[in-house]
C-alpha cells in the first residue's frame, strides 16, 4: 500500500515534467500548412479523376510540366468524362482521343489565343496568329499539309516546359536539335527543296561555339534569326536587319558603307555575303582581301581597296601583339604596369572599333584609329625596351665582380701554393 502510494506520488510529480517533452495538443502550437492541405485536397481530387485509372504514365509526364501547375487537366484538351471510371462512359460525349495536328492547334489556341487567360502569365496571345504567317503555318493550316509541324511537334504536349528550363525542347541549347528532327530529314525536306545539315553547320559556327562551348545563351539559335512561331527565312533585304539586332554597331557601319547603300539593289550581299549564314564565321584579318574576290574581279579597284583595308587591320593587329608581348615582359621584370595595362585595354577597344569600322570601307577613319593603336603600342614597347636595357646593364656589373673574385682566388691560391711547399711548411 505504501509502495503504491509512493509510485502514485512520483507519478504525480513527474507527469507535468514529462509533459514538457511530450508532443502538445494540436491547438497548442499554431502551424500553418497550406501546402500540405492543398496536397491532401489534390490527392483526394485525383482519386476521383477517372483518366488516371488507365493513363497513370501520362499523369506523371503531365505533372512535370507547367500546365499541371496551372490546373489544366486531361479533359481540357482531350474531352471525355473524367468523373466516370468506366472506359466507355469516360470516352463518351465530347471525347477527342489523340489529337491530330490541326486539332492540336485548335486546342492550344483555345487558351493561348485568349489574351485574358494569357495576360496573367505574361505570355503573348499571338502565337497562333504568328504561326499562320510562317511557312509552317501556311503549309499546315492553309494547305492541310501534315508534313508541317504543329504546336506539339516542338513543345512536348504533356511535359510542356518553359523555354528557360534546360529540359525543354525549346531551350536555347535544345532548340537546334528540335528543329533538326525535321530539317535534318532529307526525305522530308527533299519535296520542298530545302537543304539539310544546317544544324551541324550552326554548331560549328561562331554562334554555335558561343552557345554550346561558352554557354552564352544570348548567342542566336535557329529561332534567333528565323523567328519561332513565325518562322521564315529572312529576305535578302532583311538580312542586315536580322544580324543588326545584335550587331548594332556593325550594322550601322555597314549601312554607312557602299555595300549597305547597295543592299537589296544588287546581287545578294548583306552580312551573309562575307560571313555565310548557318556556319557564320569571323573573317580572319589576313583573309579580308580574299573575301572581296568572291564577288569582285581580281585586280579591280574594289579588291585593291579590300587589300588596303586588310593591310590597315594587319598592321593594327601586329601592333597589338607587340604591345601585349612588351607588357608581358614588363610584368616578368617586376614593373608596375597598371598604366600600360590600361593603355593596352584602350587599344583593344580601339581595335574592336576598327574591326567594326572596316564595314564602312572608309580608309581615312580606319587609319586614324590604327594610328592611335600604334601610338599606345609604341609607348608600351618603349618602356619595355628601357627595362631590357636596364637588365642588360646589370650584366656589366659582373665584370668587376668576377675581376675581384678571380683576384682573390689568384692571390689566395698563390699564397696556398707557397705554404704547401715543404720548405715553406717548415718555416711556417
Amino acid at each position, binding site marked *: 500500500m505504501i509502495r503504491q502510494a509512493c509510485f502514485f506520488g512520483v507519478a504525480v510529480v513527474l507527469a507535468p515534467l514529462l509533459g514538457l517533452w511530450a508532443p502538445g495538443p494540436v491547438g497548442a502550437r499554431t502551424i*500553418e500548412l*497550406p*501546402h500540405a492541405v492543398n496536397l491532401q485536397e489534390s490527392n483526394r481530387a485525383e482519386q476521383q479523376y477517372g483518366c488516371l485509372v488507365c493513363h497513370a504514365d501520362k499523369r506523371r509526364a503531365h505533372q512535370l510540366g507547367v500546365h499541371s501547375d496551372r490546373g489544366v487537366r486531361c479533359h481540357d484538351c482531350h474531352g471525355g468524362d473524367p468523373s466516370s471510371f468506366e472506359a466507355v462512359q469516360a470516352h463518351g460525349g465530347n471525347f477527342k482521343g489523340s489529337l491530330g495536328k490541326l486539332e492540336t492547334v485548335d486546342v492550344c489556341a483555345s487558351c493561348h489565343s485568349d489574351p485574358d487567360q494569357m495576360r496573367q502569365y505574361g505570355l503573348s496571345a499571338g502565337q497562333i496568329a504568328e504561326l499562320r504567317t510562317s511557312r509552317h503555318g501556311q503549309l499546315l493550316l492553309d494547305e492541310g499539309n501534315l508534313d508541317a509541324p504543329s504546336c506539339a511537334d516542338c513543345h512536348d504536349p504533356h511535359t510542356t516546359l518553359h523555354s528557360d528550363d534546360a529540359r525543354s525542347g525549346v531551350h536555347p541549347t535544345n532548340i537546334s536539335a528540335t528543329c533538326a528532327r525535321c530539317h535534318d530529314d532529307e526525305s522530308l525536306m527533299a519535296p520542298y527543296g530545302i537543304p539539310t545539315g544546317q544544324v551541324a553547320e550552326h554548331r560549328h559556327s561562331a554562334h554555335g561555339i558561343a552557345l554550346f562551348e561558352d554557354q552564352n545563351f544570348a548567342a542566336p539559335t535557329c529561332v534567333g534569326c528565323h523567328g519561332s512561331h513565325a518562322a521564315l527565312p529572312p529576305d535578302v533585304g532583311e538580312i542586315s536587319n536580322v544580324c543588326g539586332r545584335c550587331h548594332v554597331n556593325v550594322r550601322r557601319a555597314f549601312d554607312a558603307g557602299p555595300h549597305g547603300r547597295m543592299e537589296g539593289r544588287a546581287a545578294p550581299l548583306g552580312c551573309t555575303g562575307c560571313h555565310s549564314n548557318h556556319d557564320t564565321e569571323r573573317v580572319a584579318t589576313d583573309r579580308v582581301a580574299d573575301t572581296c574576290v568572291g564577288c569582285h574581279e581580281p585586280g579591280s579597284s574594289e579588291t585593291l581597296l579590300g587589300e588596303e583595308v586588310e593591310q590597315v587591320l594587319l598592321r593594327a593587329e601586329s601592333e597589338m601583339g607587340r604591345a601585349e608581348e612588351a607588357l608581358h615582359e614588363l*610584368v*616578368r*621584370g*617586376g*614593373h*608596375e604596369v597598371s598604366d600600360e595595362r590600361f593603355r593596352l585595354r584602350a587599344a583593344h577597344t580601339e581595335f574592336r572599333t576598327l574591326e567594326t569600322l572596316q564595314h564602312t570601307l572608309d580608309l581615312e577613319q580606319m587609319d586614324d584609329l590604327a594610328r592611335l593603336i600604334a601610338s599606345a603600342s609604341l609607348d608600351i614597347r618603349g618602356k619595355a625596351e628601357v*627595362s631590357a636595357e636596364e*637588365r642588360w646593364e*646589370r*650584366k656589366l*656589373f*659582373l665584370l668587376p*665582380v*668576377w675581376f*675581384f*673574385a*678571380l683576384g*682573390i*682566388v689568384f692571390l*689566395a*691560391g*698563390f*699564397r*696556398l701554393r*707557397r*705554404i*704547401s711547399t715543404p720548405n715553406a711548411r717548415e718555416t*711556417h
Partner: protein
Amino acid sequence: MFKQVRTWLGQVGSDLRESTDASLLSSLRFLGLLYGRIDRTLPIDQALRKAWARRLPSYVGWRHSFGGIAYLLFMVLVVTGVLLSFYYRPSIEEAYPSVQYISTEVPFGWLFRDMHVWSANLIVLAILAHMARVFFTGAYRPPRETSWLIGVFLLFIVLAFGGTGYLLPWDQWAYWTTTEVMNVVRRTPIVGGTLAGFLTGDVFVSGATLSRFFALHVIVLPWAAFGLLVLHFVVVRKHGTAPPRGFVADESPGTPFYPDHLFRMVIVSALVLAIAVSLAAMFPRAIGDPATPFELPDGLVSSWIVVDVSLGLIRTMGVWGFVGFSALGLLLVILPLVDRDPGASLRRKTLVLGVGLLFFLGFLAFWTVGRQIGAVPPSAVIESSILDERAVPTPDTSDSEQSGDPETRQEP
C-alpha cells in the same frame, strides 16, 4: 711577382700614413684604446689566435668545403633576407607591389632579391653535397651520429625556409604552386589534414596563409636554424672530422686552420659568391601576374630546385611518389641507429647504401625531370568555397528571403 706587389702595397700604405691628417690618427688611437679595454676583459686576440692556430687533420681537404659553402650561403640568405624585409610587406594587398618595388625601384634591390632566390637554390645543392660526402665516407656513424641527425634536421629547416618563402612574392606561380603543395600535404595519411589546416589557416591559400608563412620564414625558422647550427658546430668541433676508411693515425700534427684552410675557404667563398651574383644578374626570377584564387594561371613556372624535384615526382609517380620520396628522406634520420659500426665498409651495407643512393641520385634525377617539364598547367582546381564567395545571389533567392515565403523559409 708577389714581392713586387707587396712592395707596391707597402709603398702605398706608407704614403697614406704620411698624408693622413691628425684627426683620423686620433680616431684610430681612440679605437685602439677602446679595443684594448675590451680585449683585456674578453681576450679576443687570444681566442682568435688560438682558433687560427688550431690544427686540422691532414686528410681535411677541398672536399670538406661543402659544409662551409652551405654556411656561407646561409649567411648570404640572412643578409639579403634582412635587406628584403626592409621593403617587403606581408599582406595580400601589398606583398606583390612591394616585391615589384624591390625589383625595380630600390637601389640594387634586384641584386639582393635574386641573390636570395639563387642562394636558396644553391644552399640545397651544397647541403646535399655535404650530406653525400658524409654519407659515402660513413661519417654518420658513432660517435658522430648526433652531428648527422642535426645536419638532417638542418636540411629540413632549409626546405621549410624555401617552402614558406616561395609564397611570399604572392604572384600566380607562387600562389598556385603553394596550393598544389598544400593539396599534397592534405592528402598525406594521418597528419595531412591537420598539418595543412595549421599551415594554411583557412580552407584555401589566403591572407592567413601568407601571414603564417611570413612568420615562420622570418621568426620561427631562423631561430631554429641558428640553434641547430650552433649545436652542429659544437658537436663537429668536439668529435672532429671523420677520417677516411683505412686511415692510419701518425705523428703528423696536421695543418693549421690559418692559413691553409682559411685561404681554401676564401677561394671557395669568392667563387661561390661570384657564381651567385652571376646567376642573379643573368637569370632573374621573373614575376608572374598578381595572385588570385579566382583564376588559374596558364602554367606554373618553378624557381626553386625543390619545387622542380616535387614536380618531377608528382608528374611521373603521382602523389604517393612524392610522399614515398619524403619518407625516404626521413629514413636518413634513423640511419645511424641502423648502421652503427664505424669500421665497416659501406659496400657491405647493401640496404643502407641503396637508401642513400636512391635518395641522392633520385633527387638529381627528379630535379632533371622537373626542369624538363618546365612550366606546367596547375592540376589544382578552384575551390567551390571560393566561387561561392564570389557568387552573386540570384534574384529568386533574395526575393524569397526578403518576402519570407512560408514554402521556402526554414523553420528555426
